[in-house]
C-alpha cells in the first residue's frame, strides 16, 4: 500500500471539499427554488451549522459533551449588538457600556471578530478552570457556565438591557453570507482535526491514560480545542444577532442547547461530516413536523398534528438513533470517495460517494 505524498494530500483534502461542495450546492438550489420564507430558514440553518460545527471542534475531538457552548453564542451575539446598534439607542439604553462602544457604530466584520475573540477569551478562562476535570464533571461544569451566562445577561440592565430585547441591530446576514461563514467553520474543523493538537486530543478521547503515557498533556490539548471551538461558536452568535436584528437573552438557553446537541448526536459526534449531516437532517425533520402542525390539506379536509408533536417526535427519533446508531447517522466517519481497492475486492463501482473510514 504505497502512497505518494501528493496522493495522500489529495485523499486528505477530499472529505472537506466534498462536504463543503455539498453544503454550497444545497444552499444555492434551495435559494434559487424557494421564496423569501425559505431563504430565512436557509440562513438560520447555515448559522446553526456554523454553531454545531464549532461545537463539534471540542465535543467531537475530546469526547466531552459541552452544555455551555450556547453561552459562547450569547456572548458573541451581544458583542455584535454592542458594536453595531445605533449610538443614540445605546446611549439611552445601554448606559453601562464603555464610551467607545456607546458612541460608535462598528462595521459588520469588526463585530464578527470582536464576538469571536471575546467568546474565545472567556473560553480560555473557563477551560483552564474546568478542563482538568473528568469528562462527566467537566460536562456538568459547562452546564453551570451556561446558567451563569444566562443569569448575568438577564440581570445586567445597563449593558445587556436585561430581559428586554435589544432592537435595531443592522441586518447584514443573507443566505450567501451565512454560507461563507459555515464553509469557513467546516474548513477550520477539518483542519484542526488533523493537526497534531487534534490528533493528540482524539487520542485522549479514546484512552486518556495511554495518551498521557505517550507524552500528551491532556489539559493543554483540550484547552486549545475549547478556545477554538468557543471562537467559532461566538462568531455564530454574532451572525445570529445580525440576521435577526433583535436579541433577547432567552434565545440562548436550554432549547438552543438541546437543539444543537441533538444535531451533533444525530449526525455523529465524532466527525465534521456528522455535524453537517445532523444539522441538515434535524432541520428538515423539524420543518416537516412544523408544517404538519400547521395543517396539511388533503382534498376537502385539513389534517393538523397537535402542537408540540415536533418536540416529542424529535425526542423519539433521537432515542432511536442512540439505540440503533450510537455513533450517529454517519457512524462518526468522514465522507470520502470510494477508493479503488483490488485487494479487498472493492471495485469502486458502487455509489460515487459513500461514508467510510
Amino acid at each position, binding site marked *: *500500500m504505497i502512497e505518494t505524498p501528493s496522493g495522500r494530500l489529495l485523499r486528505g483534502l477530499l472529505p472537506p471539499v466534498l462536504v463543503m461542495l455539498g453544503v454550497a450546492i444545497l444552499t444555492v438550489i434551495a435559494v434559487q427554488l424557494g421564496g423569501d420564507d425559505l431563504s430565512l430558514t436557509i440562513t438560520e440553518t447555515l448559522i446553526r451549522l456554523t454553531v454545531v460545527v464549532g461545537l463539534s471542534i471540542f465535543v467531537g475531538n475530546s469526547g466531552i459533551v459541552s452544555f455551555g457552548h450556547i453561552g459562547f453564542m450569547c456572548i458573541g451575539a451581544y458583542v455584535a449588538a454592542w458594536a453595531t446598534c445605533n449610538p443614540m439607542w445605546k446611549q439611552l439604553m445601554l448606559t453601562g457600556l464603555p464610551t467607545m462602544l456607546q458612541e460608535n457604530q462598528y462595521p459588520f466584520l469588526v463585530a464578527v471578530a470582536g464576538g469571536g475573540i471575546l467568546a474565545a477569551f472567556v473560553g480560555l478562562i473557563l477551560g483552564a478552570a474546568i478542563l482538568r476535570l473528568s469528562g462527566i464533571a467537566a460536562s456538568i461544569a459547562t452546564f453551570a457556565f451556561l446558567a451563569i451566562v444566562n443569569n448575568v445577561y438577564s440581570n445586567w440592565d445597563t449593558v445587556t438591557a436585561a430581559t428586554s430585547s435589544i432592537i435595531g441591530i443592522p441586518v447584514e446576514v443573507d443566505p450567501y453570507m451565512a454560507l461563507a461563514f459555515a464553509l469557513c467553520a467546516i474548513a477550520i474543523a477539518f483542519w484542526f482535526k*488533523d*493537526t*497534531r*493538537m487534534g*490528533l*493528540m486530543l*482524539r*487520542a485522549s*478521547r*479514546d*484512552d486518556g*491514560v*495511554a*495518551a*498521557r*503515557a*505517550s*507524552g*500528551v*498533556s491532556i489539559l493543554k490539548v483540550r484547552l486549545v480545542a475549547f478556545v477554538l471551538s468557543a471562537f467559532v461558536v461566538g462568531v455564530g452568535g454574532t451572525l445570529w444577532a445580525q440576521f435577526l436584528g433583535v436579541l433577547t437573552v432567552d434565545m440562548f438557553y436550554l432549547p438552543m442547547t438541546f437543539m444543537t446537541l441533538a444535531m451533533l448526536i444525530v449526525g455523529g459526534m*465524532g466527525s465534521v461530516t456528522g455535524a453537517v449531516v445532523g444539522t441538515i437532517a434535524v432541520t428538515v425533520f423539524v420543518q416537516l413536523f412544523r408544517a404538519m402542525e400547521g395543517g396539511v390539506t388533503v382534498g376537502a379536509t385539513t389534517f393538523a398534528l397537535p402542537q408540540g408533536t415536533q418536540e416529542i417526535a424529535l425526542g423519539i427519533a433521537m432515542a432511536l438513533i442512540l439505540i440503533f446508531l450510537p455513533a450517529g447517522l454517519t457512524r*462518526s466517519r468522514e465522507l470520502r470517495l470510494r477508493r479503488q481497492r483490488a485487494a479487498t475486492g472493492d471495485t469502486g463501482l458502487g455509489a460515487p460517494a459513500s461514508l467510510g*473510514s
Partner: protein
Amino acid sequence: MITAYAGGVEMITRPSRTAPGVDQPLAASLRAENISVRFGGLAAISEVTLALERGHILGLIGPNGAGKTTLVNCLTGFQAPTHGRVLLADAPTLGWTAEHFRRAGVARTFQAGRLFKALSVVENIEVTGAGLGLSRRRARSLALELLAWLKLDDKAETLAGALAYTDERRVGIARALLLGPAFLLLDEPAAGMSDAESDELSSLVKAIPKTFECGVLLIEHNMRMVMDTCEMIHVLDSGRTIAEGTPAQIQKNKAVIASYLGGEGEKQLEIMEEGH
C-alpha cells in the same frame, strides 16, 4: 534510519531515535528506592527497591495481585509512592506527571493494550511523536519507519480497534518505542499468546536494548519466556521483594519455589496460564 542491503532487499536495521528539536534522553538508570504504596488499608507494595539500567533486560514476576503493575505505575508517574522515591539518573522525580516521565525517556505499555481504537495504527504511534513535540509530518515518517522495523507496515492504515490480539501488543510496543526511550516497561505483553507467538515476541524484546540502547522491564507470567529473555529477575509476592537474581538463581531459590513456583504457587501458575 540506518539501512542495510541483504540479498537485494532493503532492510531497516535500526529506526531513527532522534529528531531535530527533541532531546535524546540521557538517563543511565531508573530506580525505585524503598517504595511503598498503600490503597487505604491495603499495602499494594512494601519497601521495594529495584534498578533498571540501560541496555539490560530485567524481569519482574509474581502472582496476580503481587503489585507488579503498581510498581510500573510508580516508575512511570501514574502512581505517587506513599513512601520512598523514584530516581531517574539519580535525580528525584517528586511531583512529575506521567507526561513528564515520557518526555524524560521513560515509556511503558499496558496490560490491557489501551490502543487508541478509533485511530489508525500509524496514527497511534504518531501520537507519541506529537506528544514529544514533533510536527505531524515528521512524527508520521518516524512512525512508518518503526512499523517497517516491526514488520507491521502493511497494517499502517488499519484502525487499531480492528487489529488481531498479537498485532495490538506490537503496536503498543511501537507506540512506546518512538523516538528511542531510555527505559521501556512492558506490562504482560505476551499474556494470552501461544508459545510460538511468545517466542517471536521474546526475540523482539531481546532486540530492543541493542537497537535502542534502552533498558527494559518485562512483566510476564510465561516462565519459559521470562527465563529465556531476561538477564536478571526480580520476584514480588504480596507487595514484597522475595528474591532477585539471574534466571538460574531464581529457579533454585527456595522462597520463590515455596511461594510461587511450587505448592499453592504452582497451581496458581497453572491457572494463570490456562486463564488466557
